[in-house]
């Protein structure tokens, strides 16, 4: 199983809701999600759907980094996009592993995951309007997309961390804590770099210099 690819061939499942239909063999029913992370003793179905959405966001992040690395003309940014993209691919794998440890299916695409993918794809659609902006505006738009995506990504992992902190000691709690510990440093760095780079670049374009060390502060 390659967690980067979610297709029928790879074993994808979904929960048909509203307008969505799927073959019976690809359908996930609520009862199958009832045992997801049951140590939490909460709404297992909601949590399973949420974690699936987190996975979708990580996959979209990987696609965003690939695009950004290919598009940018700023070498320093390209290096960062490639570095963070590789880390994001690893985060996809870690989330897939966590999903399995919690009793879920990493190939499950929840309705929430579909909506996450839809919203994330709109961030990337900015490229469709590239013909009427200058190069720097496009660079900043891409960086802004990274910043927004990373903020959500960061918030997702924070949520998992908070969730674990509310749980009694259990295999599920330890699995979540382990996953969070593997990624949180990198997630902090992704947001920090995107925010600081965006800020510094805009200030430079405006013609106002930043004091050394001040780039990461947001008022």
């Amino acid at each position, binding site marked *: 199983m390659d967690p*980067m*690819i*979610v*297709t*029928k*061939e790879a074993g*994808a*499942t*979904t929960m*048909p809701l*509203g*307008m*969505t*239909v*799927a*073959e*019976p063999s*690809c359908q996930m029913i609520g009862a199958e999600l009832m045992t997801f992370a049951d140590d939490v003793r909460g709404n297992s179905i909601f949590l399973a759907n949420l974690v699936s959405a987190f996975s979708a966001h990580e996959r979209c992040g*990987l*696609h*965003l*980094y*690939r*695009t950004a690395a*290919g*598009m940018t003309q700023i070498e320093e940014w390209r290096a960062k996009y490639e570095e963070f993209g590789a880390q994001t691919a690893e985060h996809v794998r870690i989330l897939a592993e966590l999903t399995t440890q919690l009793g879920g299916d990493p190939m499950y*695409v929840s309705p929430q995951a*579909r909506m996450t*993918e*839809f919203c994330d*794809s709109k961030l*990337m*659609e900015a*490229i*469709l*309007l*590239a*013909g*009427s902006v200058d190069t720097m505006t496009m660079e900043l738009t891409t960086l802004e997309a990274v910043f927004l995506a990373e903020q959500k990504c960061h918030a997702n992992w924070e949520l998992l961390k908070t969730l674990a902190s509310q749980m009694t000691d259990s295999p599920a709690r330890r699995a979540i804590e382990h996953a969070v510990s593997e990624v949180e440093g990198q997630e902090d760095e992704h947001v920090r770099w995107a925010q600081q780079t965006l800020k510094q670049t805009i200030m430079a374009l405006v013609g106002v210099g930043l004091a050394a060390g001040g780039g990461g502060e947001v008022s």
Partner: protein
Amino acid sequence: MAFNPLTEKGIPIDKQLRNWSELSVQPYDKDEVDPYTRCRVIAMNGIEVESIMFSHQFARHTDNPDIKRMLAMTRRVEQQQQKAVSGLVPGDETTLEHTIAYEQVAVDLTAFLARNEPDPYLKQTLDFALLEDFDHLYRYANLLDLIEGKKADRITKGLTEIMPGRPTVDEHRHPYDEIRGHYEKHTVDPLSRCHVMTITAAEQQTMNFYMNIGNRYIEPIARSLYQEIAMIEEQHVTQYESLLDPLETWFQQEVFHQYNECYMYYSFMTEESDPRIKAIWELHLGQEIEQLRLACEMMHRYEGVEAEEILPQSLPEPTRFQENKGYVREVLASQIDLRTVGTQFVPLDQLPKDALYFSYQQQVNGGGLVPSEDVIKEHVRAQGGDYRHETEGPHPVKQMEQAATQKR
């Protein structure tokens, strides 16, 4: 042997343009052509038209010059492909004769797709419209006999039966009841996606054809029959396009269009009996492989998605034109009275009394004129019965064994 267009070498895009001589193809002989060769020509014409119109829509949603240029280049070749395919239709094939062939496409393509469709809901959707196109063939066949004095089985050559399906008069449904659920882009079988794209393109082509040629006849019965059936084709396009997952992005849709063209040209190339036309399918497959590569390159560049992440490792089993008489009879016998409520298929006797179906029926059929009924009545009056071509015995639905136009 598995065929993967992603690993095949196509014709470079700058080598794909043809001059006018190359585009000026020899039409088929309408009396000699294999009916299913003609069906393939009609189907591929529709698929090219859809590809072109999608590309235009995509181009209208971007000002990125690189994307616009790539779309314009590919689209120009698609236009040439469409001209070459469309040019195979001879000028001495009358509009009604060609219409009979359109409906033969609709019947045997839909039936084949339904028989091979893995998703039960998509299969049901195909079965549902199958019976309606089957009825259109019957109505047009009677019109052909009435105004041109020609038997439609000379065109279909007995490969497709001609008899009533779900009566066209009963097919008029409220627009809300034409919406269907859609497949999910991650879980959909690649074959299902190809089925949906193919049938949407084919029905859209039929809709466009009737929209534009319905006024080419002088006879009021012909003009009004084209109008009525064209409205059903609008319903069918509404139905089939609903099946597509809107989560698929512009770039992904472009890739899927190119992929489906590869799939259909490959399918038809492997079964084509006319060597001259087979060579056209082969040439176009070589062109589509390159167009697919370019679409995948664009998707990778602007979305970071690799082709292998969304496409299978080989083309699905080919789509074929072949006889489906037994299958059509089974569906006729079991689903003739099916209707829809919203996205669901419901037997007529289970429709709620206040169903939109009834009020819409009253609105469109309530004026006294129902061309699809009148054409049969006229045929019965003129020739003592309706025109049919039943090769496998009497109609599988007892009450349809006779030419009974509905009392309303």
